[in-house]
């Protein structure tokens, strides 16, 4: 036995050290501070399904991804290995993956590629794009529709029309009417233009039946220098009648036009927005468009061309340029409720989250993000997404 001292020594050291390390790190899983949402006023139940995605900077230059929920925060690094390898899909896509596992197999689109209604789930993606956009001869649409009631899946692929012209094509929205799938895409041409297109797909005959350009900007002629931006929808996978996009005037001036495109009729209508709404549109939700004027969030109804609600924002500290990024309010609207995240002036952690009823304008909940024990004076938190689970 004595002669085996080397073996015994090494085995003992190894087992003890590594064992202790992992046991200890399992116990002290959160080596970063806990960040919570504390209620200031209102109905706590409303904040339950909210998850805030963000990034926490430790002050030593390390950024870690974090999800903040009312119960506590979860650092992405601290999740179990199995949770982490499942990929960084949004909650919506993850839910779809769980519920419709075989339909979602092999699909890599983001929220914008899916449409979910009560009885169908549709997906449209563009596949076979080369990463650098130099050789795109094979670009195809990959279309699939699941009939939830009988489980039937209709799927087919179609080449992208005029694909040799494009460097990249992204799916911005998917809508459906009867048996026709309507897909809005942003196409980047190889010669520098980018345009919004609408394609129609006939599901019964499994072919492409429509191909229309909605708007274009880019390097040539009258559109030189202008920018097109689709206003993000609050709920990307829900059906909606409109696509709203904003267009800079050529020359990059601050004037922006907002154009509403009605997917059903194909009508394009420019919004006549009042003077004070010349600021950013933050997001759209069915027939409402939300603007940030600096002091207020204004809800604008595009069907009636009226401002239907105005919500005051807490005073923003716009003096420090570095904080600009963090002081832009973050908005999410769903189920007639608006979830608003604003930064507290002068503080790097301590954002306010408010839930407001959009029909009545009443504040239903007001809460604040707090960190348990501040570790370092240089730490900061930046939230970039609000997700509301169902």
């Amino acid at each position: 036995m004595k002669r085996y001292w080397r073996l015994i020594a090494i085995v003992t050291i190894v087992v003890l050290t590594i064992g202790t390390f992992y046991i200890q790190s399992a116990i002290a899983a959160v080596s970063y501070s806990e960040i919570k949402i504390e209620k200031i006023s209102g109905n706590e139940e409303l904040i339950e399904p909210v998850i805030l995605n963000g990034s926490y900077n430790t002050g030593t230059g390390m950024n870690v991804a974090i999800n903040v929920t009312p119960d506590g925060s979860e650092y992405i690094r601290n999740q179990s290995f199995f949770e982490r390898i499942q990929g960084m899909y949004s909650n919506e896509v993850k839910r779809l993956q769980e519920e419709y596992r075989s339909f979602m197999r092999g699909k890599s689109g983001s929220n914008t590629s899916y449409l979910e209604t009560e009885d169908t789930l549709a997906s449209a993606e563009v596949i076979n794009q080369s990463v650098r956009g130099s050789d795109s001869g094979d670009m195809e649409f990959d279309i699939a529709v699941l009939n939830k009631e009988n489980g039937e899946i209709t799927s087919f692929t179609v080449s992208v029309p005029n694909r040799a012209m494009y460097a990249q094509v992204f799916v911005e929205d998917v809508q459906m009417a009867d048996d026709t799938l309507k897909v809005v895409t942003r196409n980047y041409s190889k010669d520098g233009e980018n345009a919004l297109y609408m394609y129609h797909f006939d599901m019964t005959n499994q072919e492409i039946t429509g191909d229309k350009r909605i708007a274009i900007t880019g390097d040539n002629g009258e559109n030189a220098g202008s920018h097109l931006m689709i206003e993000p929808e609050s709920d990307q996978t829900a059906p909606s009648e409109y696509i709203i996009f904003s267009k800079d005037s050529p020359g990059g001036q601050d004037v922006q036009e907002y154009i509403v495109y009605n997917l059903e009729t194909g009508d394009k209508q420019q919004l006549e927005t009042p003077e004070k709404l010349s600021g950013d549109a933050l997001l759209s939700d069915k027939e409402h468009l939300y603007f940030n004027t600096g002091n207020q969030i204004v809800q604008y109804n595009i069907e009636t061309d009226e401002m239907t609600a105005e919500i005051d924002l807490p005073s923003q500290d716009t003096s420090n340029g570095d904080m600009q990024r963090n002081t832009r309010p973050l908005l999410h609207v769903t189920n007639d409720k608006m979830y608003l995240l604003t930064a507290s002036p002068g503080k790097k952690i301590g954002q306010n989250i408010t839930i407001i009823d959009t029909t009545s304008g009443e504040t239903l909940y007001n809460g604040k993000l707090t960190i348990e024990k501040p570790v370092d004076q240089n730490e900061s938190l930046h939230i970039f997404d609000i997700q509301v689970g169902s």
Partner: protein
Amino acid sequence: MNRFVKLVNFELSRFMKVYLTLAALTIIVQVAGVIVKANEYMAKANEAINEDRIPMAQFVEQNGAMSFMDFTRSLWFMGPIAICAAALIFYIFMIWYRDWLGKNTFIYRLLMLPTARLNVYLAKAASIVLMVLGLVSVQLIILPLENSVFKWMVPVDFRSDMTVGQIINWDYLSMIIPQTFTEFILYYGAGFMAVSILFTAILFERSFKWKGIIAGIGYIAISVIIFALPVLSMIFLNREYLYPLEILGLEVALGIVVTAMSIGVGNYLLKKKVTV
């Protein structure tokens, strides 16, 4: 089993001198490195404060507080790890070849032992594994000590503290000391698979000489392809048909298959084909 344990002990003893040197080297160089790096920073700070008359707070703001990461990203820390890794990789080959070198080819005696020859193979593999884990343990033990030396040398105002857990989260360290025990088993299991593939390739060479080298390389290629099959098929078909968890399950199964195959082929070569 007894034979196996004896053989492992034997293999460890043979390498013990080099091994202890490596461990000592790591400890000494890394601790020296903490001291050197801390001194460098403090010298800069002292110069700024005393000679250039810059107030302390401003110095910290301009140059950044020193954190333990400044040390771990330096050669003082990574150098010894790299040397140990290189030495052990080299020994994966030498653990076999040293038995054929010299006047009295030791392999003759090893193969004549009244024990299954598989024990020789497994003992060598186990020794390598234990030695790697031993060095990892040494690193794990000295890390908090180094952190303490660092804290002792740099006054609180100048430094940005990190817990050992946070330090290990950094890129390179998290490869050898993964975050969770599951990952640990997966990474080091894959490492063991690699060692067994290499061992079998070495035995091919020792059995067939020149043709053996080609056979060895071919064997490595086949093993890699089998193991990477799920990923390769995803690249070629340009689609991801498997969910990540499914890929993980498949890879674990393939890993076990490749390891078993390597040990099996190695055993066969050792019994029938090896030339002394």
